[in-house]
């Protein structure tokens, strides 16, 4: 690549960019909007974090990693994910997952219903004991699909599972020698000071409803998930979206076949 050509590209881009106007007035107006929205977002973020923690815990239960809490050894699992952890290409996401998990993961670019890969994260989940000491950690990969269904595909090493999957699955199917296990869990998110109804408390007693406090408004959502083991990896495809279990099962087959 000759220097003149490189210099021409550089100068052309610089010239184009520096011709873009951004007035003092616009600068001030946007700063005011930032301040107006910042506090509101901070409050939403707190509620969102709480909700995310519940969802994440639900995922870990479904994947068979969090049940050790009851056994007394592991009392909490900690992880954090930020915008800087997001990977926007399937190839790079798979490469990062292979680096951290030591195995090739299956992640299709698209899933039925117009769900396309949006971003992936590979994070470390840290297990803590009662005294707050780290007792172990394992990598967890999540592929987020864009579309109205809000589909997420979680992957972890089967060896990191701390218990066998529970047999409370509502749907089971075999595909290419792999057993797909499907389940739907009802969640009720409530503001911190809200009082659940007697009926909801009864459902909670019966294990049919999970109640979580911390959201801005009352929200009822159904957590649908399909889990399976493929080779040395555990997969969990899940959503809070409006997807039928049969569709989720078909998407799981797409992942297996990819």
């Amino acid at each position, binding site marked *: 690549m000759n220097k003149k050509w490189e210099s021409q*590209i550089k100068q052309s*881009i610089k010239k184009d960019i520096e011709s873009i106007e951004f007035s003092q007035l616009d600068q001030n107006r946007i700063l005011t909007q930032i301040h107006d929205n910042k506090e509101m977002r901070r409050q939403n973020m707190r509620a969102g974090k709480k909700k995310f923690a519940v969802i994440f815990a639900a995922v870990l239960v479904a994947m068979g990693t969090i049940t050790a809490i009851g056994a007394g050894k592991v009392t909490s699992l900690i992880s954090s994910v930020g915008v800087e952890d997001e990977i926007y*290409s399937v190839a790079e996401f798979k490469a990062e997952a292979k680096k951290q998990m030591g195995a090739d993961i299956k992640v299709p670019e698209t899933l039925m219903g117009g769900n396309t890969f949006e971003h992936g994260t590979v994070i470390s989940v840290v297990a803590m004991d009662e005294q707050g000491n780290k007792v172990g950690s394992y990598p967890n990969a999540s592929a987020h699909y*864009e579309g109205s269904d809000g589909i997420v595909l979680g992957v972890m090493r089967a060896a990191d599972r701390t218990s066998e999957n529970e047999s409370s699955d509502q749907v089971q199917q075999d595909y290419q020698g792999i057993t797909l296990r499907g389940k739907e869990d009802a969640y009720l998110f409530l503001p911190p000071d809200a009082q659940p109804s007697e009926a909801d408390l009864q459902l909670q007693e019966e294990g049919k409803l999970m109640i979580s406090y911390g959201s801005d408004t009352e929200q009822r959502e159904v957590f649908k998930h399909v889990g399976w083991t493929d080779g040395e990896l555990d997969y969990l495809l899940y959503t809070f979206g409006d997807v039928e279990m049969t569709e989720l099962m078909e998407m799981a087959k797409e992942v297996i076949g990819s």
Partner: protein
Amino acid sequence: MDKERKALVENMIAGDEAAFDVLYRFYSKKLYRMAYFITGNQSDSEDILQETFIKCFLHRSKLRQPERFESWICQILVRTAWRMEKKKKGKAEISFDGLLESGENTGAAERIQEDTENPGPMDLVLQEETFRELGKAVNHLDIRYRTVVLLYYYNDMNTKEIARVCGILEGTVKSRLYRAREQLKEQLKHDGAETTLKGGRLCNE
């Protein structure tokens, strides 16, 4: 990064809103222009700028090395822009009309940079034409290539930094840069005959 700015970033991380405002005033113009270069329109660029600084403040505790502030905020901007672009995809085409118009309305000779040795009036006209064609070609690049080109040529980042900002492998950055250059060369070759003809006409006149 100088000591004064590093102190501002440290204060911002500690929650100082006045420090945040000073940083905003320092970086917003550059970041707005970057967003405009990526998206091609004013409204999206304003949204991206706003979202970038909101995320910057809300996630400030994640910035472990204050001296990496510029690279970190560029990372937020690029990923916010990509996410917005992905959401818009299929709904509307990106327009670069504004950018091209403003490029065409700018003056000529005073913008020619120093690495051309004593250019004559004809050289300046041809160079200006090349810049314009290049600008047009860059805007036709895919958003992923355009972002890498922006960070490399405008932000002077190396391929390793770009990989971190974009969340891709360094090898991918290199291949995108290579392909972007090849596409630009192809595009200019395609437009070359016309450019030469224009130059010839000017010369004859």
